[in-house]
């Protein structure tokens, strides 16, 4: 496998062509919603992720992740795999998944990807070897992490306005 194909694994190209969860959706009634807009200042690309939280027993559960964005294949495909991975998870599980993904892409290619845990998102392990692409892979995840926090803390029952935020990932 050439170094290029190590980065652009087939799953990634597939998610890039068919983006899961793409397009902003109105949240179901009774969900708490927040969204976050993230800009990658290195390239000017951006993504907005909206999170809708529902309740299952004692747990907050990610009921939907809808998103729009402009960016490279890595950023779009990674947001697509994020969607598949976190929908249906509790907020704490979702947070842990973000942590695992971040650790993987920051490991400079030294990580063994945990496919069981990360599913298709494990395909982004090759990003670690390209320092300038780490922000690409993290863009949607950072937006999700931020939106999740907002939804938990002060999520609205009807979708809120575009709450722009920036954090260190895109700094």
């Amino acid at each position, binding site marked *: 496998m050439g*170094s290029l194909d190590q980065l652009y694994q087939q799953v990634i*190209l597939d998610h*890039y062509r068919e983006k899961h969860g793409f397009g902003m959706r109105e949240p179901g009634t009774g969900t708490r919603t927040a969204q976050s807009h993230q800009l990658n200042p290195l390239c*000017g690309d951006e993504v907005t992720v909206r999170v809708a939280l529902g309740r299952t027993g004692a747990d907050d559960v990610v009921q939907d992740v809808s998103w729009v964005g402009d960016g490279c294949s890595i950023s779009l495909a990674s947001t697509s795999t994020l969607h598949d991975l976190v929908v249906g998870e509790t907020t704490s599980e979702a947070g842990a998944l973000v942590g695992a993904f971040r650790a993987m892409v920051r490991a400079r290619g030294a990580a063994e990807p945990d496919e069981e845990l990360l599913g298709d998102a494990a395909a982004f392990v090759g990003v670690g070897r390209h320092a300038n692409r780490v922000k690409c892979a993290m863009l949607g995840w950072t937006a999700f992490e931020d939106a999740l926090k907002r939804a938990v803390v002060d999520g609205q029952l009807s979708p809120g306005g575009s709450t722009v935020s920036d954090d260190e990932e895109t700094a």
Partner: protein
Amino acid sequence: MDTLRSLAPAGEAAPVGEAAPFDDAELAVLRARFPVLRRTIGDHPLAYLDSAATAQRPVDVLDAERDYLERSNAAVHRGAHTLAEEATEAYEQARVAVAGFVGRADDELVWTRNATEGLNLVAFALSQYGTGGADAGDLTLRPGDEVVVTELEHHANLVPWQQACLRTGAHLRWIGLTDDGRLDETQLDDVITDRTKVLAFAHASNVLGTVLPVERLVERARAVGALTVLDACQSVPHLDVNLVDLDVDLAVFSAHKMLGPTGIGALAGRREILDALPPVLTGGSMVEVVTMESSTFRPPPQRFEAGTPPVSQAVAWHRAVEVLDDLGMDRVAAHEHALTERLLAGVTKIPGVRVLGPETATDRVGAVSVVVDGVHPHDVGQVLDAAGVAVRVGHHCAQPVHRRYGATASTRASVYLYTAPSEVDAFLEALAGVRAYFGRR
């Protein structure tokens, strides 16, 4: 000079005159002086097509800096000792050489951190009116004044002026572009008026490659009494530029784009203008008498050089301009002109690839930016990298010009004197395969 003339304003263009591109044998000798060009990327030889971002350095330059550091390294001025004298001498000789390279006298050249700092020094010096310190007198920006730039400026020649306007209440205006990537000269008389206090523009665009019609812009600025500031970052490395002949008041450029080091740039300008500007950054080496209460300042260029200057970098830059002089800027320009033609001929043949900027090499330097239909520039760059081809992706610090042509980013190949035709071909071949890789057709 023939070459400079051939790259002069559109409409007056001539073929590249007598100077010839470097032939294969010359190029081989030349390239052997650049250690980094021996790099391989995976199985591919490196094809470095990112010189508009930063150029590579020949051993001549590396050795000159190292020799200085191993023999004479010392703080300049104020030293009674031998090393300090040697260092001062080397440092001031560098000033003579770099200033002379663009036709200025040594007391007309200020060392800066980079070209960006040079533009900031000017923008600040012109906008200190009412801030309690010395100001630039008649040159000072005041409410109602106008600063004119163009739509193709690098952020370095745009944002400092936006800030200067915020500080002073002056107004920023700009000259737009034509669809084929040239300055829209029909706007000149409307935009540059009696209210114009400053006209700041790039000599050559780092995105479009377009060479601007300096002569006509300066003529118009002179007619309305405006100060002219030239961003010469993409011209001085590639063309035979004489700032006195161009008749611009102030100009900036950076060493790292012309075989020299990072960490040093220059602001070069007419002595009377520099004399009229107040200091901006203050501290050691730029003062005359300092008491706890107040200070007086030295004349230019020292007035603008606070603190320890980039000494070894000046020495290295000196060697860089000697290398350029030895090669001959006419030949450098001719070589790049031929490569630019090859690039343009190639990219315009690839389906789904659009060139930003002029599609002909006339009045154009060798930075060619393209948009690949349906593929993000960063993905383009990655595929090229896998073939050993190094290009720049993104907005190249010029968002407005990208917006003007309906793009947020692009993929840019740029050549320099050491670029081989085969490297251009490697780029074209890899570029032709990009859309297929991502399943576009």
